[in-house]
């Protein structure tokens, strides 16, 4: 989805840039025309870069959700194992022992 969008964006950027380049370099352009063309090129590049950054930033939330999902999965591992049951039993007996001894 976004790969197609960014490819098209690159093509649009390239064709716009060529039109600007011709003005910026032609010996028939005045100094003012050249300066304006160069400024327009910088703006074109910046707009293009900012579009890419926005797409990257939008994707950050997706990465964050993925992290939460994996953390949940990792935390759930081991809860139903024989050793987990044994440790729970051991803890229960130890706590009961303490309660009875205090009485």
């Amino acid at each position, binding site marked *: *989805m*976004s*790969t197609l969008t*960014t*490819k098209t*964006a*690159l093509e649009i*950027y390239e064709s716009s*840039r*060529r039109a600007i*380049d*011709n003005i*910026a*370099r*032609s*010996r*028939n352009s005045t100094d003012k025309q*050249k300066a304006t063309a*160069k*400024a327009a*090129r*910088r*703006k074109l*590049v*910046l707009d*293009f*870069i900012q579009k*890419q*950054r926005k*797409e*990257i*930033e939008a*994707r*950050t939330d*997706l*990465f*964050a*959700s*993925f*992290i939460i*999902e*994996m*953390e949940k*999965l*990792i935390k759930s*591992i*081991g809860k139903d*194992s*024989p*050793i987990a049951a*044994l*440790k729970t*039993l*051991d803890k229960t*007996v*130890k706590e*009961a*022992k303490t309660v*009875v*001894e205090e009485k």
Partner: protein
Amino acid sequence: MTRSNKPVFSLSIFLMIFGILFSCTVLPIREFNVYKETFDKVRLAGEEILLDYGSVSTQIYALEQQVAENEKITVEKVNAQRELTFDIAKKAAETVDTDHILVRMRAWAIIALYNEVLTGLAEGKSASEVAGTIDSLMNNLTGFPAAEITDIAADIVPYVGALKALLETAQLEWSRQKFIHVVLEGGPSIQTKFIAFLRDDLQNIYNVRAALNDLSYQQTLDDIAALATDFHKLANKYKNNPEIDKLVKLTDQVNHLLKSTPDYLSGDEETDSELLASLEGEGKEPYSDLAHSQLVQFKNEIMAKLSEAQQLNSALGAYQNTMLNYRKLIDEMARSLRNLETNIIDAKPQAPPAKELQSLYIIMRQSYETFKATRR
């Protein structure tokens, strides 16, 4: 539970646990190792690319400053600096500082942890904790301040060795089956989310670097065009004379350099003629050695700028190769994970290895002898 049927109860537990062992889960360790090795390679490359992307923020900031300086000041823009209507909640949400690179690094780290957990399950590391836990439990039971509990504990003591061996094996089998479950649960998420996000990120990250490279490249071509214009202006001061062949040759050399520079010419004859040097007009001045050396100087400066342009071109080419290789690594990682999942789904439970069964049989036999002795 009365004292007389406790040994029967214990034996029935032994047989139940032993029943688990008849189907032993075999894990595709080779495929798992291939996946892990591929992951490590991709992670290394991925983090370098992220850090490189992070390093361009200075260049982008400088570009933003340049663009801002050239922006036309309008009444609307000036007035927009003072906002009376101010949505606090919206602004607070907008101005949250997110480190986009750090989040991605964390995503790599969480999968590395997931792989570590899988390794622990595959190796059955938790099985080694069984003996220690049973010892702790037995200590707590035998030291319990109640006769009913210590009696039960005393009955279990002769079977503790067998219990440890059986529970270790049960834990090992649980680990193996959990490994399968965790791969089949986490694997699809890694494929459809993490790997898909990495692929999408790649094009955007490349585009940022490519655009910055292109800006520098085009600015270098601007300098070349300015030098070509100066060459053109100077060359056209000289009228026809015997030395003109030298001038024509020099002009041809300069044009050859310009024509062989990517992106310099557009392919449109009319536009391109304005970018190349040509000898035209009356040219009244004599063509001297000084004039020739000045023109050669322009040519040399054009060549120096061309060298800069070529370096930028090479840098872009190298970056394209890096991204291509990284994409191939990502695809390899996806393939190795898919291979692991397929092998897990296709794996059928097998009988445990003979060596594992034999040692268990000996322990079971000893426990059974103890059981018979306590029954008497």
